[in-house]
């Protein structure tokens, strides 16, 4: 079969909503796009542990501490499934992690913003997880099977996190004046970066068309962003807070809320590494990896010794134990 025929067959499967599985033939660009996207997603989960992990030691009650710790741990678990999903496409976890540390691979820019107060834990849950979920719900139907299945599991946990985040803001919004101010301030700081999570405008997005055709994505950046704005405008009313955008206004003709222009200059600056915490986040990941090197080496050396002692014929001796 010629490559052309294989490509037609592949597209036909996509069009018929048949999932692509690891051993199926796929165009090299499809493989690469999926590796890029899934590993980027995995890195986002892992780097995303840092801004929230920052508040575990200072959580204001034992219950909140338990909720936050469990949430950050869930993110580690999501990173793990996603690395495994990406590995099915032929790239090892180690290679992916090296790409993260060298700066070659990206992760969601949202995690390059600092978590300055406790209210940021709620704002991240509500806005950041809320934005992520819209993207992830779409990805539950993505064409690559292992990615779609990982997302189904992840989505369940993420919607739980979002509810917890909103609930924690709700408590602040009914609290003391200081707590209310803390809540509004966190919403003000996280609103615009959350809108940026959907990526560049459709007119500027380089990967969108092909990804839509291959059903890696099923909605465009702008469609998802609009859906998010429409949702949050309603939810913020329950908090008695406001969103920091004077241009927000219901547009009867479109059936959607209009909203102000994102500061694209800031967006590209953070993508290029100049966000407030880009350096700290990567430094923290590299440091953990470097400081863990002796541990990984010891574990590997011990596993070798054990293998040798269980297989004396292969040069080892049977351990006394």
């Amino acid at each position, binding site marked *: 079969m010629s490559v052309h025929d294989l490509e037609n067959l592949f597209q036909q499967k996509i069009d018929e909503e048949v999932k692509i599985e690891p051993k199926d033939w796929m165009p090299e660009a499809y493989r690469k796009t999926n590796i890029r996207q899934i590993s980027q997603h995995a890195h986002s989960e892992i780097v995303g542990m840092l801004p929230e992990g920052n508040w575990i030691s200072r959580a204001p009650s034992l219950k909140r501490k338990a909720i936050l710790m469990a949430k950050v741990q869930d993110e580690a678990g999501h990173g793990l499934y996603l690395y495994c999903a990406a590995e099915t496409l032929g790239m090892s976890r180690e290679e992916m992690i090296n790409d993260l540390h060298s700066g070659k691979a990206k992760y969601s820019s949202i995690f390059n913003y600092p978590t300055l107060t406790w209210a940021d834990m709620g704002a991240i849950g509500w806005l950041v997880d809320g934005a992520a979920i819209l993207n992830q719900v779409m990805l539950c139907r993505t064409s690559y099977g292992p990615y779609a299945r990982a997302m189904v599991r992840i989505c369940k946990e993420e919607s739980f996190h979002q509810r917890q985040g909103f609930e924690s803001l709700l408590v602040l919004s009914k609290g003391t004046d200081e*707590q209310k101010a803390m809540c509004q301030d966190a919403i003000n700081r996280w609103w615009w970066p959350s809108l940026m999570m959907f990526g560049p405008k459709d007119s500027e997005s380089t990967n969108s068309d092909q990804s839509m055709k291959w059903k890696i994505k099923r909605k465009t950046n702008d469609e998802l962003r609009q859906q998010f704005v429409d949702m949050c405008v309603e939810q913020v009313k329950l908090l008695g807070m406001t969103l920091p955008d004077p241009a927000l206004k219901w547009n009867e003709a479109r059936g959607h809320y209009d909203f102000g222009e994102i500061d694209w200059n800031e967006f590209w600056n953070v993508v290029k590494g100049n966000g407030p915490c880009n350096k700290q986040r990567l430094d923290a990941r590299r440091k953990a990896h470097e400081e*863990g090197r002796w541990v990984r080496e010891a574990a590997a050396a011990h596993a070798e010794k054990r293998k040798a002692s269980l297989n004396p014929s292969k040069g080892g001796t049977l351990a006394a134990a």
Partner: protein
Amino acid sequence: MESISKKSDSKVPPLEGFREAYTLHLADTTLILSQRNSEWCGHGPILEQDIAITNISLDLLGQSRNFYQYAAALKNDGSTEDSLAYLRTEREFKNLLLVELENGDWGQTILRQYLFSQYQLLLFQQLQQGSDEQLAAIATKAIKEITYHVRWSSEWVIRLGDGTDESHNRMLHTIDELWRYTGELFEAADYETAMGIDLAAINQIWTEKVTAVFDEAKLPVPQNVFVQKGGKHGIHTEQLGYILTELQYLQRTYPGAKW
């Protein structure tokens, strides 16, 4: 809770102050170790192990909440799990010194976890048989978790002790750092004696178990090391003040706020 206070009323009324102090000792010890372990969250050497240590941290936090809730019920003065954890001072905390020490490297965290979990398992097995029904119930639930903590941490001690030259040397250094804090585990405070805890019996089995793991890890068991103590009576290392400063920051800054 009703049945417990009845039971204690009828059997051992003079114990009440000791029962509360002992419960707080158990609560503080598990909370502070949870707090220390949680510092690894997001910074572990391997993703799977990052998840494992956070899991242990969560288990310990859950145990501490059970103990604090029981202590609050014993106090019966409007105290809550949060007022006991967030509004008591350095001199009131009764945790073991071992659990408040800095994490050090992964080997130090792991070794501490093993030394503690092995002790906790034996202690909780005793509590399970004890006359305080509430402590027995908490212990029974926790033993399932602790059994896993012992397995996980002992496997790591063996891996690191019998891994590379570097890991072996690091473990030797770690033993040197931690050992002087293990004696306190077995020196009975007045509230432990009053509660009938037999620490001598635990000490004997603990030493056998630890020796077996150290043997497999090719690590030496130190002999005749001076014992640092005081935690059980509220005399701590300089570390505890910093831990509480972070832990209690929001409750202290915004008194009375609900979170």
